C-alpha cells in the first residue's frame, strides 16, 4: 500500500492524525496520546499516527523502563493493528538526526482485510516534505 493511500470518495469518515513529537517517558504526553488513539479507534474514522522529533523514540524496540519506575507501555503500539490503526508514519529526517534507522523500530504490523488478511508493516518511513503533505490532507490533527 502506498503512503498516500486514500479512503474511497463516498467515505464520510474524517481523517484524524495523531502527532507524537516527544520521547516516551520524560513526560506523559506519549502515553496519554496513545490512550486517545485507542479510544478513538472505536469511532470508525480514518486514523493515522505520525512520529517525528523525539516522538520517534516512542516506537523504538527493546524498551526497558525497569530502572525508572514507570510502566513500559511500548507493547501497546504493536496492538494498534487489532484496533485497525494501520498507518504509522515515521519521519526519516527525525530518525537520521538521532542516529536511528528503521531497523531500530519495533515491528508493528496489521492484517490487511482487503488482501486476504496478509500481514503487512504498519510503519511507513516518509521524508519530511511527504509528511507535510500528509498533514495537509487531514481533517483533524491532535498533537501531543
Amino acid at each position: 500500500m502506498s503512503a498516500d493511500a486514500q479512503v474511497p470518495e463516498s467515505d464520510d469518515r474524517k481523517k484524524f492524525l495523531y502527532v507524537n513529537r516527544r520521547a516516551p517517558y520524560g513526560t506523559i504526553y506519549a502515553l496519554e496520546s496513545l490512550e486517545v488513539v485507542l479510544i478513538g479507534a472505536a469511532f470508525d474514522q480514518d486514523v493515522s499516527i505520525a512520529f517525528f522529533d523525539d516522538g520517534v523514540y516512542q516506537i523504538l524496540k527493546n524498551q526497558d523502563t525497569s530502572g525508572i519506575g514507570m510502566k513500559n507501555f511500548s507493547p501497546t503500539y504493536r496492538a494498534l493493528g487489532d484496533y485497525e490503526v494501520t498507518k504509522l508514519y515515521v519521519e526519516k529526517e527525525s530518525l537520521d538526526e538521532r542516529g536511528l534507522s528503521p531497523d531500530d523500530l519495533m515491528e508493528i504490523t496489521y492484517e490487511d482485510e482487503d488482501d486476504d488478511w496478509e500481514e503487512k508493516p504498519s510503519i511507513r518511513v516518509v521524508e519530511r516534505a511527504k509528511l507535510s503533505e500528509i498533514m495537509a490532507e487531514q481533517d483533524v490533527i491532535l498533537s501531543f
Partner: protein
Amino acid sequence: MKFGILVNEGPYTHQASDSAYQFTKVALEKGHEIYRVFFYNDGVNNGTRLTVPPQDERNIQNNWSELAKEHDLDLVVCVAAAQRRGILDESEAKRHSKDVDNIAPGFRISGLGQLIEIGIECDRLVAFGD
C-alpha cells in the same frame, strides 16, 4: 462556525488555559458556536474548585465556570487524566472511597470519546498547549 476546544495544560504554569478562555469568549461574542471544551493532560487541573489564587490575579477556574454558566458551555474533563491527577466529582469520589470531591461548577467528568466527538462534529478543533 462550530468550534471545539482542547486544553492540554494546567492553569497558571502555562498560558494555554488563558488563551483557550480568551478564544472561547471572543468566539461566542462573535456569534460562533462552541460545541464543547475538553480538558486533557494537565489541562484537567483547570477543573478543580479548590484553587485560591491571590485576589489581584485572575481566577482561571472561576473564569471558566462563569463563562460556562453564562453561555451554557459544555466543559468536559477527561476521566482517565483526571483520576491520575486527583480531579473527582461526587460519584467518582464515592466510587474510589475518597473523602471529598473537587470538581468545579460547570465542569463534568467524562471519557475521551467526547474529544473524538469534537473532531467528528465540529468545523474546527482548536487545541491549546505545547
